[in-house]
């Protein structure tokens, strides 16, 4: 994480002048390929469905999904709002718990030896199975959804926090000790900042789980939300609506992921590679 050797990075005048041009190229390079791929895939999908005359309840065409999305905009919007709230709150709980427990595990060797193996073992429990139990205990409200999302997302954040904090180069700690640093000064000034890249990579992984967690939570018992809507639509064989809801869930997942990435860039600009 902390490497002593880095190339000096200074922008010359000429480079600065070119940098806006360079940024456009960079954006194209980053987002161009996935966009082209998605457009191509949608095109092939549409053509295949039409050519083979696949019935809509089996596999709807992208154009039908799009019109379904527009036709059901009002209902889907309110469901999206419900699910989005669950995702955001659940994810924030997971970040807080993952960070908090990760830090506690780092600071206490006893806790780490005792709890960490249990935490790892607990990951073999399928969270999906827990969902109905949680609904029984916590009811049909937002509670069980938050719990499930938090359970889904907590682990990668926690493990990456523990790993990041533990993999700080010992030489930095020695250096800080000779500079009169207390345990807490070492934690605040060296360990925590240098663990941030690792913590963020765990958080980004967790970000992709949050939306799926919300859908599972709603499947176990709910009265609204995109997951609820999927179940309802599936029962009516309204597959285009199922796909429309899936599309929105995907977009939520991507949005949370991008949000974490943006926060990461703002928080740790020094770590950019």
């Amino acid at each position: 994480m902390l490497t002593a050797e880095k190339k000096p990075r200074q922008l010359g005048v000429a480079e600065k002048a070119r940098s806006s041009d360079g940024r456009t190229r960079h954006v194209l390079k980053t987002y161009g390929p996935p966009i082209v791929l998605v457009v191509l895939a949608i095109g092939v999908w549409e053509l295949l469905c039409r050519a083979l005359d696949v019935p809509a309840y089996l596999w709807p065409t992208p154009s039908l999904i799009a019109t379904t999305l527009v036709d059901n905009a009002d209902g889907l919007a309110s469901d999206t709002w419900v699910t989005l709230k669950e995702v955001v709150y659940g994810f924030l709980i997971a970040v807080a718990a993952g960070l908090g427990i990760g830090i506690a595990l780092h600071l206490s060797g006893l806790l780490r030896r005792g709890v960490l193996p249990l935490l790892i073992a607990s990951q073999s429990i399928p969270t999906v199975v827990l969902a109905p139990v949680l609904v029984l205990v916590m009811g049909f409200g937002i509670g069980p959804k938050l719990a499930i999302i938090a359970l889904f997302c907590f682990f990668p954040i926690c493990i990456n926090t523990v790993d990041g904090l533990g993999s700080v180069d010992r030489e930095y700690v020695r250096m800080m000790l000779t500079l009169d640093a207390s345990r807490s000064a070492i934690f605040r000034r060296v360990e925590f900042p240098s663990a941030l890249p690792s913590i963020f990579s765990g958080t980004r992984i967790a970000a992709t789980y949050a939306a799926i967690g919300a859908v599972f939570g709603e499947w176990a018992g709910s009265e609204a939300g995109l997951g609820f809507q999927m179940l309802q639509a599936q029962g009516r064989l309204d597959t285009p609506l199922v796909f429309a809801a899936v599309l929105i869930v995907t977009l939520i997942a991507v949005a949370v992921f991008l949000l974490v990435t943006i926060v990461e860039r703002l928080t740790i600009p020094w770590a950019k590679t």
Partner: protein
Amino acid sequence: MAGERQLASPSAGRMSVREEDDAGIEIRGVRQTFGDVVALDGIDLSVRPHTRLGIVGPSGCGKSTLLSDIAGLLEPDEGTISIGSAETPRERLARCALMPQKDLLLPWRTALDNACLALENRGLARKAARELARPLFERFGLGEFEERTPAELSGGMRQRVAFLRTLMAEKAVFLLDEPFAALDSITRAQMQEWLLGALEEEPKTALLVTHDVDEALLLTHRVVVFSARPGRIVQSFETNFPRHVPRREIVTSPEFSALKEQALEALEC
């Protein structure tokens, strides 16, 4: 300047360090093992206050281990180390500042904020610490680099900042662990000259560990040669070169060559 910094000192503990500024280092019969490996054996050394001792020796001869022992980061298996009245590892740690081979600058802090670490660790507010560190940047030719991040500095510049960070700790004893080994030879030569100037200006009891015989002869008052593992002292000699003469003139003088040959010979056996 020193008085000013002393006034800003938040802890009473530091005052006693200041009083002990004249502390020399006494090492008696130090033996350090790691499992079955004997890293150091029967080390007796003393460094007079305000003088600099160079230690040269082959890789793995326990030079760095000795520095860790002195700094109180390690405890020797046998023998005693004292710095003035400081005998326990904790007391020694309070009196020593260590400058390692890697600059170990924190990439999220600017050069100035890196130099402020020791002051902040003692509880001084960042703003006040920055005000105290700023004049040093001017004095040591780093004036325009205060707000740069380590990634924007060259290797030599980063080592200078690391040195200022060590200096800001205001410790009586400086432990330099191959401070320039990672630099290219031209930069290293410049840095040796710079460090010599800086150390002459801020006299410290210092221990310099290096592979580089030239560096040891040039920067210190006395050089000891260590044997390969387990590290033992094979030879020791005084160096007394004029300090305000260009480096080039010193390293090409016959006296220098003679001492260098003596040291290299000791290293070979």
